[in-house]
């Protein structure tokens, strides 16, 4: 009997947590999305310091590029759910114009790939150029699909 209750509790807990993962609240979905975006911008900022020789050990460059590579596949899933929260800057255009949005994501993913290819070569000038292209891809998507605010 004790064993059965234990098992049942486990099952219910599991079901609840699975449900939570499958269907986050709009608020949580937005928070998660913003966390991933912050992670991307953090690595991006670190790479920009390294390619300009301002700070950071260039030996670590590959780690940050790899982080972008690892994160890039997750982008589509971040936008499965829209929200009308005031502080969520994801614009309705994302869901109204899914093809253009998919193109913008593809641009970003291709730019990360291109950066990752030259990053292995260690040639700073090429890395700088590829990184600038990545920046343009980020900006291109934000321009159409993120609510504008003052910088």
């Amino acid at each position, binding site marked *: 009997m004790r064993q059965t209750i234990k098992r049942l509790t486990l099952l219910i807990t599991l079901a609840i947590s699975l449900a939570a993962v499958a269907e986050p609240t709009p608020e949580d979905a937005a928070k998660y999305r913003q966390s991933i975006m912050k992670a991307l*911008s953090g690595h991006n900022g670190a790479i920009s310091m390294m390619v300009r020789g301002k700070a950071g050990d260039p030996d670590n460059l590959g780690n940050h590029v790899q982080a972008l590579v690892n994160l890039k596949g997750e982008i589509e899933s971040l936008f499965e759910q829209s929200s009308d929260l005031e502080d969520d800057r994801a614009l309705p255009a994302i869901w109204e114009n899914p093809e253009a949005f998919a193109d913008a994501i593809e641009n970003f993913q291709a730019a990360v790939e291109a950066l990752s290819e030259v990053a292995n070569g260690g040639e700073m000038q090429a890395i700088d150029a590829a990184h600038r292209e990545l920046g343009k891809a*980020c900006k291109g998507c934000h321009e159409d699909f993120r609510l504008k605010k003052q910088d």
Partner: protein
Amino acid sequence: MRSPGLLVVTAAVFVVAFASAEETAVSRGEYLVFAGGCIDCHTEAGKQAVQLAGGRPLETSFGTFYSPNITPDPTTGIGQWTDENFLRAFWEGVNPDGDHYYPSFPYTSYTGVSRKDLLAMKAYLFSLDPVVKQAPEHELALFISTRLAAGAWKLRSFEPGRFVPSENRSTAWNRGAYLVRHLGHCGECHTPRDSFGAIENDRELAGNSDMPDGDSTPNISPHRLDGIGKWAVDDIEYFLDIGMLPDGDSTGSVMSAVVDNSTSKLTKEDRLAIATYLKSVPAQRGE
């Protein structure tokens, strides 16, 4: 009989030299049109819009302005303009009929641009395909709906004059000052305006919270907390090239279009010059 061959050769050399000078002016002009930010205001929104054919609305607290067509169409564009017409428009804010422009055309900044640069810009604009497209009439508040009002405004708020480089400053600083204050007319959006809409020069680049279309612009003076004082010169260059902020985020503001159509098309040297100048102006609080 002198050799006609020599004459032909001379003429050919002359034509080639002329053509290449013309080409240089056109390509220099294209660069300057980018630096002058002309495309943003003179092109309608949307990917199909023809560049520089005008018609873009600018909603301000004085009413809605529509940018004119600046392709060389003789009736709806600037195809009949002489060099003098072109220079007077930029230097004095007057159209070929002698009427005053509204300061929605930033002649207040362009007045500092050199003759050589303006004529190169004209050469480039005249090399474009003419587009037949009439811009709508401005829809303005009654009290400024005549060009006389524009003239009165000008008397109060406009000081004509070319840019004079400062001998005490570096070449980069002077180039940056020319680009920021005049050709790039950054202050038209980034410097606050008084109740008459005149730029407050003693608050240079302190930001403007009352922009057209309900927008606002940030303080880009070197104040560490309110402005961009924490940005290094090459942070600014990076931003003007790719729109990336120093924290790795990328801009999604209206500045994004300025980066696309203007600053990203400049040489790195010019972007660094802009940054050098921006770092040198007095730090401003607020906005």
